[in-house]
């Protein structure tokens, strides 16, 4: 893992948590959406908060795909877990939502849990398996020729 790759993980964390918070801020201002009127969800996309949230989530998706091209899914998701803390802080201090002590404890458990994962290797190398699979048909063809 290089510094640049850690930077990509940091971008994933920040854009995901800020993007979700912007979406929540926009949806709160719209009020509850009924299942009978799904078109309201399309209308929501054009509100400034939701649109800004979507832009941030596009940034998240680009950096997320980049990370998935050189690391495992089960590494990338927990490695960007600091987002839970940022999102809860934003919810409490910016959106003025009530966050109970047990929910805070839950966030601590989640962050501690996913912290375990980052201590292991970031990528499962399948090249050895692939080499065996690629060699097997060749071996079979050799046997037929003989």
């Amino acid at each position, binding site marked *: 893992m290089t510094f640049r790759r850690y930077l990509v993980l940091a971008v994933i964390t920040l854009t995901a948590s800020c993007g*979700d*918070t912007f*979406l*929540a801020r926009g*949806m*709160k201002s*719209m*009020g*509850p*959406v009924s*299942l009978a009127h799904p078109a309201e*969800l399309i209308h*929501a996309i054009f509100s400034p908060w*939701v649109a800004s949230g979507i832009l941030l*989530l596009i940034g998240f998706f680009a950096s997320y*795909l*980049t990370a*998935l*091209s*050189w690391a*495992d*899914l*089960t590494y990338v*998701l*927990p490695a960007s877990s600091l*987002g*839970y803390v940022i*999102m*809860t802080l934003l*919810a*409490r201090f910016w*959106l003025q*939502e*009530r*966050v*109970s002590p*047990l*929910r805070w*404890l*839950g*966030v*601590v*458990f*989640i*962050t*501690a*849990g*996913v*912290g*375990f*994962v980052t*201590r*292991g*290797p970031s990528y*499962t190398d*399948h090249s050895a*398996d692939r080499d065996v699979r690629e060699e097997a048909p060749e071996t079979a063809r050799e046997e037929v020729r003989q």
Partner: protein
Amino acid sequence: MTDPHAIAATAAMVGAIVVSATAGDILTASAMRQVGDLDRIRERSGLWGAAIAVITNGRFGVGVICLALSFFSLLFAFSHRDLSLIGPAATSLTFVTNALAARFFLKENVDHRRWTAAIFVCIGVALLAF
């Protein structure tokens, strides 16, 4: 939130997000494995070449559709419940289902550290419901 109907509705909203997000994550991760290291592709073919390599992958397309379903489920849930409940609950549960799905579908090395993490996340999610 002690009303059984409210708890059932929250569980259904979180469930819809988790199932669609897991399918989307597994399919996009599988697509990125097929495509290869994007940093190297960008060095070789430029940003546009890297974008084409990703967009033209079939699994990526299906994965994006699943993630779009997850996104609209998330928007719907945010309009009914608090961000600090829906956000961590959905993403944390998705982490657990992703660990299981990655083990079986992507053949990732989900060792004892990753399983321990899954248990911790489950406890954390249970606490978030209170």
